[in-house]
């Protein structure tokens, strides 16, 4: 198993404002994702998370550096990397079945209509939408639309799943159910996943590793947090795990204060190419500033 299935190597993205001035969204970012790993990225709005994901999907290109998948630099979109869009991006003139089938027939153009339909139905079942195949997106609730987006992305059996805040527009109950489903499917298939989220609990429940981005502009990867929870986790039990509050407080602490201040107090041994990897450990409550509570493992 390659430890660097996906490797982000020094990517920089700048945008030109209409008045000619340039803003650097982020600069010289490095991190890697192993095969089968579930990685979440957390950071404040506008720090460039979507931009990173767009570069990974091939919809956008970095101004500098490269995103490398399986040893090859990403040059454009690929069917190997499926995207679940924040706005679900379903084609409104197609039915649920039509939307999923469109992706499948793009992936396997030689498949017969019945083969495509069978695969589509299988994945529609998988996300619990049996019976809604003939509905148009406008007839679906937000959660159902997001499910179609998930079915569409998974149905092409991609090597990598990219998700941009897929659940942020949903109510808590639907979000929980969908998180469970995505987690189950990804575990079953050993899917490599990169997901953006604002929700700390979502990251803890789903991720193996969490990439922390500082505030933009000129955002950077502050550190990479390893999830101390075992891979087998139960949503209703994880808060009992001794390390749960350690990682939770560490993440919240980062979002509340350190995402702002990190750049002005960069640790002396900080290396952009190897952002520190932190494994938050059990600790008594209430917590001290959890930054020190983390143990460096790399």
């Amino acid at each position, binding site marked *: 198993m390659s430890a660097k299935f996906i490797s982000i190597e020094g990517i920089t993205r700048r945008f030109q404002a209409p008045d000619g001035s340039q803003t650097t969204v982020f600069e010289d970012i490095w991190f890697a994702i192993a095969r089968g790993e579930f990685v979440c990225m957390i950071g404040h709005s506008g720090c460039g998370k979507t931009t990173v994901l767009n570069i990974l999907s091939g919809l956008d290109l970095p101004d500098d550096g490269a995103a490398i998948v399986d040893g090859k630099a990403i040059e454009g979109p690929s069917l190997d990397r499926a995207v679940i869009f924040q706005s679900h991006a379903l084609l409104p003139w197609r039915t649920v079945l039509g939307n999923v089938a469109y992706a499948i027939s793009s992936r396997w153009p030689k498949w017969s209509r019945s083969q495509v339909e069978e695969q589509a139905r299988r994945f529609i079942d998988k996300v619990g939408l049996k019976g809604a195949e003939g509905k148009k997106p*406008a007839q679906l609730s937000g959660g159902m639309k997001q499910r179609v987006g998930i079915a569409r992305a998974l149905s092409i059996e991609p090597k990598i799943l990219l998700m941009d805040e897929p659940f942020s527009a949903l109510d808590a109950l639907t979000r929980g159910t969908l998180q469970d489903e995505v987690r189950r499917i990804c575990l079953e298939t050993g899917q490599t996943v990169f997901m953006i989220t604002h929700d700390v609990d979502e990251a803890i429940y789903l991720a193996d590793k969490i990439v922390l981005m500082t505030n933009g502009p000129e955002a950077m990867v502050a550190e990479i947090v390893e999830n101390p929870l075992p891979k087998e986790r139960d949503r209703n039990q994880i808060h009992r795990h001794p390390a749960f509050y350690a990682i939770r407080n560490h993440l919240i602490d980062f979002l509340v204060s350190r995402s702002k201040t990190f750049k002005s107090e960069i640790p002396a041994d900080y290396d952009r190419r190897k952002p520190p990897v932190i494994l938050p450990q059990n600790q008594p409550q209430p917590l001290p500033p959890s930054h020190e509570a983390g143990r460096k493992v790399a």
Partner: protein
Amino acid sequence: MRQTSLRLRAGIVSLGILLIFGLAWHLAVSGSGPTQQMDPEYAKLMGQTAVQGKSAMPGPLDVLVKIWSHLKEPFYDRGPNDKGIGIQLAYSIGRVLLGYGLAMLVALPLGFLIGMSPLMARALDPFIQIMKPVSPLAWMPLALYTIKDSSISSIFVIFICSLWPMLINTAFGVSSVRKEWLNVARTLEVGPFRRAFTVILPAAAPTIVTGMRISIGIAWLVIVAAEMLVGGTGIGYFVWNEWNNLSITNVITSILVIGLVGMILDQALARVARAVSFPE
């Protein structure tokens, strides 16, 4: 329930308006003016208008009788100046559909090109801006001079007037396809042709059909004027010819028929618009 009763009530009101209008029309044109004393021979020449004070304007009943006679025999042909109203309509509809179809063949691909290429959009914009406001009839002399056939010239005029709304709407529809739908196609590695037909066309279809609906309306307005101008055949020529014959009944009948056909054309495209529309 509520809706049907509204529809019913609206229908009753419509019928009421029609009856009041018909009655007013009937009263307005039936004899009431002072009857003049005149030589019976002269009175014979002058007809009822003069002797009974009857208006030259036909009443609604005259028009109904006329319509009935046209309905009984819409397609008769007794020489160049006496053809059934059905034949004349068929000529006009044929010209409109031909010119409109040609305009579609040009406007849809060209609109796609303009909508997809910002360069072409800018390059063609000045031509479109200048040509669009020109009355299509202004093209008639040029068409007659170069084509030398009055019928084809009117088809050309229909072509020109149908072109602009379709072209502009197609370009607009294509250029404003939602980025996220295009991104879906990109992440699925959909090729340019498949993308054009499976994403851009359905996404832009409602806008395109709106342009087509505007075009057919304009084309139907213009064909009457064009045929009045060049003569020969067609409902426009028919109206003018009947005016020259002083047959106001026929003129009124034509007005009603022109309105009816225009409504049918518009409704046909409204149906297409409903078929391609999608709720978001």
